[in-house]
């Protein structure tokens, strides 16, 4: 299976509202690696994701995806915190918004892969919160992304739905071989999904800890996940001191 792209992010300086958010920040991610960016709310995690998606360009420095500037790199599969579905389009048309050329069968297949059945003609508001996130995930997968960017994809969902979605996302990333960056403030998300956890903190933002999680995400037991979660939490507490 082909791996996703290598990522290299260098931010010489990024200011926001007069505050220096990032200064001399460097992060590299190997192809096929799943990296969780963890940090407190408001630290600037989503900003990093927006830079990698090619949406945020107002900074000194460069974001390279396989050596190419982020805005010119192939379309990433971006999963937004709020699902960001287009409410005026049916579920099927929400998928076609990013790939107008796909057949009905491919749309049905993408929906089925995320556990959605018989929703093609429904409107997004008719879906539950968990189903909306699944639809956002199906949309991201439809572009056959080599790079998956997930911005707090499980926030505001109940625990059962979060568990289901964490397992689904893990499977889908493993199947696709994509490089993935997950942004979250919850250590449990990282403990479930990531090969590596990067904890960021401070102003300007710095990498406070960089942890490798040995076991492959798809093969982790509950005990291992809980142990990883503890390890990440401890690192987070120490980075805040």
């Amino acid at each position, binding site marked *: 299976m082909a791996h996703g792209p290598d990522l290299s992010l260098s931010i010489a300086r990024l200011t926001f509202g007069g505050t220096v958010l990032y200064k001399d920040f460097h992060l590299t991610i190997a192809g096929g690696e799943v990296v969780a960016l963890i940090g407190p709310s408001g630290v600037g995690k989503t900003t990093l994701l927006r830079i990698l998606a090619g949406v945020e360009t107002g900074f000194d420095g460069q974001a390279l995806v396989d050596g190419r500037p982020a805005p010119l790199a192939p*379309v990433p599969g*971006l999963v937004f915190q709020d699902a960001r579905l*287009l409410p005026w389009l049916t579920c099927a048309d929400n998928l076609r918004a990013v790939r107008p050329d796909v057949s009905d069968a491919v749309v049905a297949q993408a929906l089925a892969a995320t556990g959605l059945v018989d929703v093609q003609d429904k409107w997004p508001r008719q879906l539950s919160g968990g189903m909306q996130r699944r639809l956002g995930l199906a949309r991201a997968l439809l572009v056959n992304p080599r790079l998956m960017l997930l911005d707090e994809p499980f926030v505001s969902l109940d625990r059962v739905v979060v568990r289901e979605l964490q397992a689904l996302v893990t499977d889908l990333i493993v199947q696709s071989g994509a490089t993935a960056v997950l942004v979250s403030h919850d250590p449990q998300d990282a403990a479930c999904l990531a090969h590596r956890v990067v904890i960021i903190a401070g102003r300007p933002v710095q990498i406070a800890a960089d942890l490798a999680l040995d076991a492959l995400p798809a093969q982790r037991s509950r005990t291992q996940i809980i142990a990883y979660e503890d390890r990440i939490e401890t690192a987070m507490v120490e980075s805040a001191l």
Partner: protein
Amino acid sequence: MTPALDPRPAALRPKGEAWLGWASFLLMIGLWGGAALAVNSRFLPAPWAVIAHIGWLTNEAHLLPDFAVTLGRAALGFVIAMVLGTLIGIALGRSRWVDRLFLNWVVVGMNLPAIVIAILCFIWLGLNDKALILAVVLNKTPLVITNIRQGVLSFDPAFDEFARAYRLSRGQTFRLIHAPQLVPYLLTAARTGLSLVWKIVLVFEVLGSDSGVGFRVSLFFQFFDLKGILAYTLVFVAIVMLLEHLAIGPLERRLLKWRTDQT
């Protein structure tokens, strides 16, 4: 409340209450009939007399050609004003520079008395259809601009970010992201615009035209023909209601189906 006067979009009104709109209309006719019986019919002809008069005006006089002329003028003025107003409104909403430069013009346009614009157009271009339609367009366009500008300023930036992240083309972004967000504002501009255009066209026809509903009503006025005035008014109301129920309402329900559809 008649459906046309209900402030909620047609798609959001409860379906079971539709009969109330018609009951309201019948109540209005009933009140009119009662009042007509109570006063001198020369000052207030009864609705049945006016309806019979509509038949006579249609067969023996100029009702149909008059309405054809007025509707043609209103439709032309409406379409030009909607297209121009939409394009200018988008430009103002999208560019701060254009907005700063031209917003005052829109404010002036909104507040210039319609009659002044009409008189100036008639003086500059003569008493003809071109002047009349230009006057309608100049009156109506600022209202459309204001609505559309507001719509553009209300665009949700989160959807623009989605479009950029998924590298949607400009055409796709307009079709999938911007146009749907503009629809409610376009519908409001169309609905308020239609009611304004009717009134303006009629006033301008009274002022400087030798054809159309306004011209005919001014003739009825000179002969104190109240039955004629009310007959033309009733036909006018019927056309407005038909437009609401056969065109704008269904269009609104279709375009805003995503807000209410339960299937």
